[in-house]
């Protein structure tokens, strides 16, 4: 029998940290003057998203593949996460709504890529360097299957991979102090949402 509580696995810690880092970085980008609407960032949301909540970012754990270097206690996993981005926009006298929504969607996906691939965020907000590498595997716009959406909803997905050591030991992934802001993961009526305290 194991005589200790099983701690959160690396892929759980990484998934949550992706959400925290994105929340803190987007808030900071707004402070710096980014010309975007601040997105609502959710964790593992499966409840349908309402148009009034957009833009929304949803961080989802997808899968882990046994990558290499198995030992008696550890193995290296390639963990895949999906980061979904949803935007919408009305038409204005100067811009068509569908175009504006698409541009906002691509803009947010580009910012997410830049945030996660910045060398400052290699270890996300952990001081323990158990993350070995990360990469953005793909960025893809999903094509709308309908044209009669008055809100001009657009979605897209980033596939990101984090290679990390998985262990049965009590690896807790101590939080670092990389950000001036503190991010809280709270349980809302729509699911778990990252917010700035």
């Amino acid at each position, binding site marked *: 029998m194991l005589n200790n509580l099983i701690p959160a696995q690396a892929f759980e810690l990484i998934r949550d940290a992706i959400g925290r880092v994105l929340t803190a970085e987007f808030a900071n980008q707004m402070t710096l003057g980014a010309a975007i609407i601040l997105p609502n960032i959710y964790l593992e949301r499966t409840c349908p998203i309402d148009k009034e909540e957009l833009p929304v970012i949803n961080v989802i754990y997808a899968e882990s593949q046994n990558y290499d270097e198995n030992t008696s206690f550890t193995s290296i996993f390639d963990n895949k996460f999906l980061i979904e981005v949803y935007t919408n926009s009305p038409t204005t006298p100067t811009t068509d709504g569908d175009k504006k929504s698409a541009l906002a969607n691509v803009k947010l996906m580009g910012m997410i890529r830049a945030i996660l691939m910045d060398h400052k965020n290699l270890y996300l907000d952990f001081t323990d360097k158990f993350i070995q590498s990360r990469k953005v595997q793909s960025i893809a716009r999903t094509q709308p*299957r309908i044209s009669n*959406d008055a809100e001009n*909803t657009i979605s897209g997905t980033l596939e990101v991979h984090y290679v990390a050591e998985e262990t049965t030991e009590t690896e807790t992934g101590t939080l670092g102090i990389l950000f001036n802001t503190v991010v809280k993961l709270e349980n809302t009526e729509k699911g778990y949402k990252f917010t700035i305290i």
Partner: protein
Amino acid sequence: MGKILDLARNMANMILTSFGFESDITLTKDDLTVIIQGLALVHHLSFDTENQTVNSKNAHITVSESSLIAVNFPYRNAKNEVFLRGVLVSFEDSNGISKTYIVKENFADETLGTIVLNLGLYVE
């Protein structure tokens, strides 16, 4: 013209303009603004992507060509095709709240003389 076809066209026009389900619809194109009667519908729409579902909105109106002709609203282009994309549309919902939309698509039934206009949200 067949009498039944003529009757159907008149019925379609009547259903859209005076059957009891009609709404007052304001159309604006450039400096021209007119008010006509037609069916105005706004309802839920599930935006289905390969990801999560987004609960969105569908808004569309159905008007008769006769209504547009009666107020001299230009609804055909130089090639004499029905073209209303870009026209601003506003009407009140069940609570009397008026919203403005822009025509994204027009589908003309040139047999009955009716036009369905798919709408998108519009803000000044």
